[in-house]
């Protein structure tokens, strides 16, 4: 039964992805992306990554997507009826066809890689039910991977500073 759920969620995720690309308005894209994230969260759950599913929902869907919503609202270009900035048919222009070819190429590369990577069959007994044990993750995060952890924290700090500098309305020279 859970396999069926998995495939359903996979389809939803892919449809969400397509929605992001071909939706008429950014608002549409945001919503389809949210859908895709929820599908992925469910897949994580099925795969045994409960903590990751939670994080996915909380951080990704909750924080990042909300941020996108804010920006769209802020710049009030999210309305369903907004000018259809997407050119008539995204795939007509030559460039887009190349892009499609490139995307297909990358995807194909991934599939072939998986195909030839002779992954160990998980036939025997299947994956354990629960993989991301919080303790072990914490131990790893503050033990072996403490350096990347610190690095990421610095990254976040710089991001905040950058965002403040970039997005703050320049009163003095905003005139020119």
């Amino acid at each position: 039964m859970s396999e069926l759920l998995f495939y359903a969620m996979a389809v939803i995720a892919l449809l969400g992805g397509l929605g992001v690309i071909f939706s008429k308005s950014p608002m549409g894209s945001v919503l389809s992306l949210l859908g895709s994230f929820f599908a992925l969260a469910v897949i994580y759950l099925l795969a045994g990554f409960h903590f990751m599913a939670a994080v996915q929902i909380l951080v990704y869907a909750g924080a990042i997507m909300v941020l996108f919503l804010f920006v769209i609202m802020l710049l009030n270009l999210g309305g369903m009826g907004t000018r259809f900035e997407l050119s008539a048919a995204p795939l007509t222009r030559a460039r887009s066809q190349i892009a499609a070819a490139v995307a297909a190429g990358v995807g194909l590369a991934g599939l072939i890689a998986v195909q030839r990577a002779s992954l160990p069959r998980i036939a025997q007994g299947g994956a354990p039910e629960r993989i991301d044990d919080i303790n072990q993750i914490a131990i790893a995060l503050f033990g072996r991977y403490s350096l990347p952890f610190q690095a990421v924290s610095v990254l976040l700090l710089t991001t905040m500073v950058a965002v403040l500098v970039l997005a703050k309305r320049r009163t003095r020279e905003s005139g020119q």
Partner: protein
Amino acid sequence: MLPPPSHAWLWWIPLLPLIGSALCGALHLATLSARKRDPQAKGLAGLAPLIACAAMAGALALAVKGFLDLRALDAAARVLNSPAWEWITVGDPRQPWFDVDLRLVLDPLSSTLGLVITGVGLLIHIYASGYMKGDAGYAKFFAYLNLFVFAMLMLVLSSSLLGVFVGWEGVGLCSYLLIGFWYEKGWPAEAAQKAFITNRVGDACFLIGSFLLLRLFGTLDMHEIVARMGSDFRLDAIDENVKLNIALAALFLFGGCCGKSAQMPLFTWLPDAMAGPTPVSALIHAATMVTSGIYLVVRLNPLFASSPAVMTLISGVGVATALIGGSTALVQRDIKKVLAYSTVSQLGYMFLGLGTGAFGAAVFHLVTHAFFKALLFLGAGSVIHGMHEEQDMHKMGGLRKHMPQTFATFLAGAAALSGLPLMSGFFSKDEILAHTFNSGGVYYAFWIVGVLTAAMTAYYTWRMVALTFFGPERFDHHHVHPHESPAVMTVPLMVLAVLSVLGGVLGLPPVFHAAHALNDWLAPVVAPGVAILNQLHPHEHLSHATEWVLLGLGAAVALAFAHTGFRTYAAGPEPDLAIGRGAPGVAAFLGDAWSIDSAYSRVVILPLRVFAFVVRFIVDQVVIDGLVNGAGSLAKNLALRARGMASGQLDAYALWMGGGAAVISLWWMWS
């Protein structure tokens, strides 16, 4: 090789004129600023002729001393050597790869020529001190003249071929400087350049000849080469290849002689060389420089004798040049041009003599020619001096009354040149013709042309005398007042006149049962060549009867054509104008030395000049430079096109990135 006793004083013969030249040069430079203010200022420069003549007198004295010393020695060992001076040594001095030691050697040949150079040279220096009186570059002129004599003496005296080449190019340089002496007039500079470059062509051949000799004999010392080809040299003993090399060396050396002695292919510079002052023409283009070619052939007589083909070529070229020179002189209006072409013609005679193996006869004609041709040139100079730079004979006439001494000496010279009986010219020219007649085969044809040219010589000589000194006075009287030249000019004329008349005594034909002084004197020098010639085809002496016939024929031809020449022009230049109207084509053709000179400029100089411009504009600018700049602009264009990629379109960048990622991942997959 016998250990030569060394005579250091020999070095003084060339060094004296060199010092004279340096002093005169210094005088000229010292008085340069003085003359800048007032061109006529004489000042110290007036001393120049004294210094120059003193140097010449010194050289003459030493030459005479050398001559006397040589006479004291017995015939076979008549050689005086000077200490050698290492000029160039390649490799360590003990056994060098290649070394050149300059050594002066006085032997009968070089002493004869030395005497001619210094003797006639001194007379010309004295003459020039009068002739060049008013000229601004007075001291400079004598500096050049002395430098020329130094170079000529080096050429004649030095034993190494390279020493000869130093003199060879030195005289070329001095003739360049002296022809272009009045350079502000413009065309003398062109004539000087033409002379130098034509000589240079000859010198290039000379160099190739010297390289061949160096390869053949391993040394450049002429006396050693002659010695090695002398005593036991069996012509048939040497193999083909060496014989070919000897012939080539002789040919190229003869090429050098053609350049210097104005023979057939390279004679066009001599008539233009008349642009220089007349004493220059007398000294360089009559008596000395042009004879260096003959000297070289006589010096290396075994080399030339051992290649019969080259000997015949020399005679052929000689007689051809004689014919061209003679025929052109017939129609010349300028008195110096007549004498110039006459010189070309007489030189042709000398080479004709050399070709037949009559080395002594050629030197004899050289000596007598030096006397009478220098006399005629100086005479012409005195006429021009009197006529205030007028050189066109059609504007002269009846000068015998105004210039008696010049007229008398000029007559003597003309008689000698035209070969009137008992004159020096008669004996020397006929000796050559006799030898040509005696050599048989193709030389018969040469003999006929020789006699024809002798006739022409007599004709144009007396045409010149008639036009200049006889007939109506064709110059306008208020501008031109012909006057006799001062003593300092006429005395040398008289001395030369005596020499021209009595010169014949040096080489009386055997018929007169008197010793042929010059041949005996030169016998040891010429022996190796004559020996080889005898090996080739031993020729018997002419019988007395044929000799008398030849002498009579020569005298008759000379007298007849001299008379007709004089008679037609005694009344003035009308016959010239008649020929001009009657056969303008022939007159023009002859007038321009068979239009060889214009042929050269059309066939040789013009294509080379065009080729030079092709090299500059096409080959250099377009092809090579094009490639270089092309490489530069190619890089620039590539860069421009690459810049197009950075179009500022974000998605274009994204595309390139994506494309790159795709390609790499796919390639990674497949590899």
